């Protein structure tokens, strides 16, 4: 056991954690937005719109995240037309390609989580709102969305942890996130166990924090209060 290496690699890995956290937070925010839109589309009465939303979530949940990143990073650059548009400023950066892939991926899972949350809201609550003369818009924003968020908290907490693990794939498109730096140190020192303990410890710590924050929120917004 090379304690010295563990100590010396800790600051490097901690620095890389910042990139991991940036990737995670930006893609979660965009993904939540995408997820909400597609959950609403999914519940639309128009069969084409709801099929389209279902197709989106089916494709992104049925293929590995790695394929999605590679299509966006390596694949889209191949289209000549894209290279001449403004979009190319974003798509030539591995950082933004990774974020687009993560956001689309987590958006697909989030839309499923939110859809099932919307569907499990008791119709009585909406009827109660209607009988009080509240407009549909207000019912949606003030009744349905808060209840749906509460319902989906446990599942969404799992999704955040899965996404945090997913950001490790950014290392495959040259980004030096926590896993990327860990791999670099392993391949230069050939001490996989030591680096795994330090990097894995940082990941576990983040999992622990996320888990507890979600638990706290669940308690805070529980129905019994």
């Amino acid at each position: 056991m090379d304690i010295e290496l563990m100590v010396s690699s800790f600051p490097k890995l901690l620095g890389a954690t910042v990139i991991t956290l940036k990737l995670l937070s930006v893609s979660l925010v965009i993904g939540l937005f995408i997820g909400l839109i597609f959950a609403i589309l999914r519940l639309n009465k128009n069969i084409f719109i709801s099929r389209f939303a279902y197709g989106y979530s089916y494709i992104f949940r049925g293929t590995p995240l790695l394929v999605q990143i590679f299509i966006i990073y390596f694949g889209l650059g191949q289209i000549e037309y894209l290279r001449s548009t403004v979009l190319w400023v974003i798509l030539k950066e591995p950082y933004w390609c990774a974020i687009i892939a993560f956001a689309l991926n987590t958006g697909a899972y989030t839309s499923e989580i939110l859809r099932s949350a919307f569907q499990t809201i008791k119709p009585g609550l909406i009827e109660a709102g209607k009988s009080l003369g509240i407009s549909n818009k207000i019912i949606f924003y003030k009744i349905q969305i808060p209840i749906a968020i509460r319902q989906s908290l446990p599942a969404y907490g799992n999704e955040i942890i899965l996404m945090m693990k997913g950001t490790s794939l950014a290392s495959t498109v040259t980004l030096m996130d926590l896993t990327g730096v860990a791999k670099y140190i392993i391949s230069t020192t050939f001490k996989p166990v030591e680096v795994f303990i330090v990097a894995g410890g940082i990941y576990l710590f983040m999992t622990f924090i996320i888990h507890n924050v979600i638990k706290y929120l669940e308690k805070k917004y529980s129905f019994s209060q």
Partner: protein
Amino acid sequence: MELLAFGDTGWGDELFYATLMTIAVAITAMLIGFLFALIFTPLKLSKNKFLNLIANSYTTVIRGVPELLVIYLLFFGGTGAVMYVASIFGYNEYIEINAFITGAFSIGIISGAYSTEVFRGAIQSIDKGQFEAANVLGLNKFGKFFKIILPQTLRLAIPNLSNVWQITLKDTSLISVTGLVEIMRQSYIAAGSTRDPLFFYSFAAVLYLLLTFLSMKLINKLEVRYSRGY
């Protein structure tokens, strides 16, 4: 389309064999995972605090650390570990571990952590009366487990195991980093030599979708079979 031709001119046959490789790795990993679950589920359910701790550390660490990191650990550390064990038995030659074994083993460890949780949940949700009834009938330990508990566990576990299978199948794409030629690796090679990454990665996505779709169909049949009595 000519890019997918079979034979020397296209990548059809290569991708076909790569798909078989993905299926083989996924099935092997799933079975290795069951083996891990078989060891760790009893430890989780045991009344001994120390055994609980061992099983809980396994599932917590594996489910809290990225799959890629576990793969790197085994890819770079696996050879060293095996050679160390071999040296204890007096074998000092260089041992190279096959990429298939490393890959299937690392995905298996990951899938095992998820399977353990599934089996634990399933066994815990079986009615206590079933255990007591088995005792009353005078069944021995094996009879109790194989005739009473296991069939009921399977019925409860299959829907969740199907999720584990989907995760395992998709995780196999990650072992392409170790050089094993499965769908992702083959697409990477084809994309590199034809300079057509968009086509090949999209085709890889289609192959994965096909695999997940077909396995869902199969699992649904299993689910019906195991719910016969209900």
